């Protein structure tokens, strides 16, 4: 997809995110906005996948697992805009009887979701299982995950990281959204993790660091580089440095919009910064 078309998706997805959380006065806009460029590139430019014919087993397709399930607004918008389900369903986000639960789930059969997430730290293990099943099935496609940096404080992530390199799960690309923020403040204030890159390298991963994680070009080259690094005996990690709240100026540079919805005025401000490109839901 052209840069211009990708940028159009980015703008629309940002609108979807702020409108969804505003409508129910709940949800997580900050981390969602920070990952728009990454997920747009992954779903609209990079992965081989079948939005119109969703199958749980995804044979012959690349698979994506969202481990930090609280950024469900961006996930739902991307899935809808990619064609997994009708964009009108975004209006049901977090409402009673919705398939778009507060955190993603398979429970209501939403196309594009293969595992529930929300309780943090579990997605990498699940992705490893899916990746190993692909190997058993002779399926050479790749399994992708996304994690928050604060999520790395969960011990299970490191159980999974140790296993993935020990067992040479080299059809796995795990991306960490390094926005350096979590609910109670910056990651350094809450629980400093030191060098995340050194930690993954010490665990035997091939690590690619992306300084400009909100630049479509940078994301695209990182995904191409990461894909080229698969199949060489090591799992691959992308450290994607992003800005929480990216694209909505008053939500940037702070952790305060982790789980807070904009009011009417703030919504108008946010929308004015991101033109409607593909039609609001």
């Amino acid at each position: 997809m052209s840069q211009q078309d990708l940028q159009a998706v980015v703008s629309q997805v940002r609108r979807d995110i702020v409108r969804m959380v505003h409508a129910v006065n709940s949800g997580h806009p900050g981390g969602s906005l920070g990952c728009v460029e990454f997920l747009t590139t992954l779903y609209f430019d990079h992965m081989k996948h079948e939005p119109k014919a969703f199958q749980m087993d995804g044979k012959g397709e690349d698979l994506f697992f969202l481990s930090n399930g609280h950024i469900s607004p961006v996930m739902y918008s991307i899935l809808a805009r990619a064609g997994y389900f009708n964009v009108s369903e975004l209006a049901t986000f977090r409402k009673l009887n919705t398939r778009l639960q507060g955190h993603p789930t398979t429970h209501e059969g939403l196309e594009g979701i293969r595992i529930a997430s929300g309780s943090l730290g579990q997605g990498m293990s699940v992705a490893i299982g899916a990746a190993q099943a692909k190997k058993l099935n002779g399926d050479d496609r790749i399994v992708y995950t996304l994690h928050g940096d604060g999520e790395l404080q969960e011990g299970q992530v490191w159980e999974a990281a140790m296993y993935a390199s020990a067992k040479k799960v080299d059809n796995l690309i795990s991306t960490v959204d390094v926005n350096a923020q979590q609910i109670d403040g910056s990651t350094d204030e809450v629980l400093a993790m030191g060098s995340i890159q050194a930690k993954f390298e010490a665990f035997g991963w091939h690590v690619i660091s992306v300084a400009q994680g909100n630049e479509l070009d940078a994301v695209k080259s990182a995904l191409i580089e990461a894909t080229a690094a698969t199949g060489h005996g090591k799992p691959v990690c992308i450290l994607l440095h992003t800005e929480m709240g990216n694209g909505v100026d008053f939500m940037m540079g702070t952790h305060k919009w982790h789980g807070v919805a904009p009011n009417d005025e703030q919504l108008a401000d946010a929308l004015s910064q991101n033109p409607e490109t593909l039609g609001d839901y």
Partner: protein
Amino acid sequence: MKKYTDSGSKDTRSGFGAGLEELGKANENVVALCADLTGSLKMNAFADQNPDRFYQVGIAEANMMGIAAGLTIGGKIPFTGTFANFSTGRVYDQIRQSIAYSGKNVKICASHAGLTLGEDGATHQILEDIGLMKMLPHMVVINPCDYNQTKAATIAIAEYDGPVYLRFGRPKVANFTPADAKFEIGKGDMLTEGTDVTIIATGHLVWEALQAAEALETAGVSAEVIGMATIKPLDEKAILASASKTGCVVTAEEHNRFGGLGESVAQTLVTNNPVPQEFVAVNDSFGESGTPAQLMEKYGLNADAIVAAAQKVIARK
């Protein structure tokens, strides 16, 4: 009454190992995962015969549950193996979110359940696992009674599409059910018919219940024994039919009285046909070190305890 004989004591975990070995040959989608307890879980035969379908995950049970969930996405039928404590309490949230809520076809196979783990003591003797697992929506919970039934149940759960908790134990116990019986999930086994009291038992306590029924017969009491391997979904029909005949019930299990089989039976009775019930179970306590027989006696989980409970419940009719 119908009498049962021990065809040669065996451990239920070996029944699991034998069932898994058969599945390895019969179903290429069956895969197995173990958290550094392959020998204890008797998974060696499967691992040796199917090295590409066996995943040694090391001492990392949370990761094991997640990997198992992921393997189902590629159409595999994963069997996880570790001790009951590490299969449930340690990984409750992983099971809850990645397996149960996500509706994944994972078979959680748990050995060394209950007091009969013996000398290792309370850190390893989980008595709460049935409760933890049965509370999860749509989780099937099975606690077979002997080697033959554990083997049959292992084979049967591969045919069922959905999460299952299969609980078994460490020590050699009487092997008395038929070797060729097909296991049916959710169906109680009418082992011996009687008219004065219904004894509903699960796991290692089924053999004890049969011993108790023989002792009661000598004392002139006619006991009906139902083996209830599946705790969820519960065979309510069998329970209610028997309770309406005998008018009183004893439940027996190697588990805390809170959250176990007895509690599920009580719910069935009070909502349909309230009759007196007595509970042979651990009374809200942790276990401790000792031989299995010593522990079962100290905590009141043997034939003698079942006889006493039967006499008490009959008096309450």
